[in-house]
């Protein structure tokens, strides 16, 4: 009788799992994709670029400071190595963004991570960004960290209703800088950002502050980055660490704290740090609409700095 109960139970559970699998595939594959014009959906284009780009290549990983601050064409020209920019949004969680790079890391590649400073404390994945960003491209779910499965599950009904609304009631529209149209085929943001549109003086309450201090660094992230470094090495590639641009007006740490932060990371991380954090603290004139987002001039400046750092590193190892 116990056997009968167990068998019936397993059969029933299987039926339920199949039902939810149908719902999942029905919504993701049968209902036409609705978020393809969104900023988040760019994660798929960037991933496709990664797969298509031949080695040796530079793979750049960051949050939106990398979207709003890297010109991959310029990096390719200045370093002589093709570059694919995976940076999109810190809300994807740096683990997810870093994991997708594993789609194509090969011999001779250089992987550069440049996490926003808050991400060193722990990376929180925003399920909305991931689920709407992936939309119908379900193979990308394999890169979602296991600990975020519950967040993704909890968000999924919202995704179902939003998608059905867009497909059958009022289609969603995406425009401006936060849309797929703002990017070129290389995955670089080409939306015109000629000046800073934030008010002066900047309100820390509204825009946030940037703390660059060794106290923000979590052991969990250090362990993750070191594990990732081992993976990159196993692929006969190199992992390098750089820093994001930071708006000077909202950096609340002293010069000594920044130096201490950098030395602390240097000590803890197995991968080399190729940049000086202080070099990337820029004035307001280089920024666009947030404390990490650069305008066109800022992007140029930051890309030049990063190229310099990469070339300097390449020269030392030759």
């Amino acid at each position, binding site marked *: 009788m116990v056997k009968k109960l167990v068998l019936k139970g397993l059969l029933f559970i299987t*039926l339920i799992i199949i039902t939810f699998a149908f719902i999942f595939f029905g919504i993701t594959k049968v209902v036409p994709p609705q978020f393809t014009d969104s900023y988040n959906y760019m994660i798929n284009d960037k991933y496709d670029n990664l797969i298509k780009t031949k080695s040796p290549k530079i793979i750049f990983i960051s949050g939106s400071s990398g979207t709003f601050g890297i010109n991959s064409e310029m990096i390719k020209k200045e370093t002589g190595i093709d570059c694919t920019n995976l940076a999109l949004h810190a809300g994807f969680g740096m683990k997810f963004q870093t994991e997708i790079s594993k789609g194509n890391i090969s011999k001779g590649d250089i992987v550069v991570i440049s996490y926003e400073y808050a991400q060193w404390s722990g990376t929180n994945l925003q399920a909305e960004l991931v689920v709407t960003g992936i939309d119908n491209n379900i193979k990308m779910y394999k890169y979602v960290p296991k600990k975020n499965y519950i967040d993704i599950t909890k968000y999924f009904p919202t995704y179902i209703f939003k998608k059905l*609304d867009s497909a059958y009631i009022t289609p969603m529209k995406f425009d401006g800088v936060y849309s797929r149209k703002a990017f070129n085929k290389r995955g670089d943001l080409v939306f015109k950002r000629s000046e800073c549109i934030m008010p002066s003086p900047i309100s820390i309450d509204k825009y946030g502050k940037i703390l660059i201090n060794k106290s923000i660094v979590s052991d969990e992230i250090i362990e993750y980055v070191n594990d990732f470094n081992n993976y990159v090495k196993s692929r006969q590639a190199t992992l390098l660490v750089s820093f994001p641009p930071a708006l000077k007006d909202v950096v609340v740490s002293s010069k000594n704290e920044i130096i201490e932060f950098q030395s602390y990371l240097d000590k803890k991380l197995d991968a080399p740090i190729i940049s000086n954090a202080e070099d990337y603290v820029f004035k307001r004139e280089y920024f666009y609409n947030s404390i990490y987002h650069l305008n066109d001039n800022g992007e140029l400046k930051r890309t030049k700095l990063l190229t310099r750092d990469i070339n300097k590193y390449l020269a030392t190892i030759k």
Partner: protein
Amino acid sequence: MVFNSVKFLVFFPIVVLAYFIMPNKVKKLFLLVASYYFYMCWIPKYVVLMLFSTISTYLTGFLIDKTESPKKRKISLAINIVVNLGILFVFKYFNFFYDSIKPILDVFNINTDFQSSLLLPVGISFYTFHALGYSIDVYRKTIRHERNFINYALFVSFFPQLVAGPIARAKDLIPQCRENHSFDYDRTIRGLRLILIGMFKKVVIADVVAVYVNQVFNNVQMYTGAALILAVFLFSIQIYCDFSGYTDIALGSAEILGFELMENFKTPYLSTSIGQFWSRWHISLTSWFRDYIYIPLGGNRKGLVRKYINIFIIFCLSGLWHGAAWTFVIWGVLHGLFRICEELIKQFVHPLEFKSHILQKFKDAVKIIFTYCLVCFAWIFFRANTLHDALYVIKNMFSGISFSLLKLNIRDAVNINLLNSGTFFRFYIISVAVSIMALFLMDIYKAYVLHNENVIGMFDKMKRVNRWLIYWSFCVITIFYFIIQHGIFKQTGQFIYFRF
């Protein structure tokens, strides 16, 4: 740990598996430990109160049983009652009592500040009544004192019924606690069916209509007319499904473990009178008050006037038992008055009888609707956050009834919780309507076909395909709404009666 949580879905199968494979001599102890662990998942330190109540009533039973002296027996019982009700008073009623007398103290310029910051321990009203019922039964010699402390402690703390009933009677549950139970296939299937129905009632009906009910009752001033009527109606559904859903899960869990608990609901909203309603709603509490307070007060044996006074006292106490607030007391008083009016009508008005079967059925239908309306009216006080809100609802629920305004009000009330999504709104309305209809049909079937026998019996009469279809659909929609609960509504899903 609540029944509708992932933690319980992990806890329960482990407990069941371990219980059935454990050697007989440690089974009861294991179940006791599991019950204490279940309770400690809330605020662990409050387990001391439950342990204290258990030990004090156990010792009382021992002392009462040991002596034949009526005076000593009475004193032991009295001390035990004072101690246990004292704990209840301190944790549950102190602030209510203090806030009520403070205006009087202020009149006499007595300035005091004795507000208690103690939290209400979960289930205190339930396990206290378990324990008190036991000691009164021993005093009355209805049962002998249970010498085995493990058996007795298990009776008080048995986790399926610990935090929200049913309030078990010692003569029914203690013998079951003495036995070691083994796995039974049919019992397990019955238990699983009950759990599924209970989860459906709670997750798909109670918590879903709560989205609208909470929005209206927490912001009553924004609503009038049909919106308020709908909120009252939906609250009657919410509390029924919440509480009976809990009971179904409790009964189902106990059944799987081999225990039989008493049914707590027998289609109460199909009652033809308030008296019948109270014989079908929260049956374990009503019968507890009847046996341990109403009858000792004299019941209906000391004349009509005394009978009505006793009825009134019982309902006031019932209101107070439910919550330490005047709204609950008024709710209880209303039911008391309804009940007394019914008795008076029965006493002095000849009932209308029809020879025609159809007319008789029509008369019953009118009585059912009228009783339901009275119950809903009283629910206004039960649910309203303040007396002022309750009076606002009553004053405004019949003003400006307009169905177009109602549709707008429903949208406004729920849209923010439904992501302003047209698809979700339609899904919400359809699922609420279909679920309430399913509930109504189930209760009709239970009342008129099964004659209030357990509705689980209806599954045995079905073809296997139909049975599995029902299991499958209930399960899928329950899981889907469970995810919505946590991902969209962001509700805790706590049962209403946990607050008592």
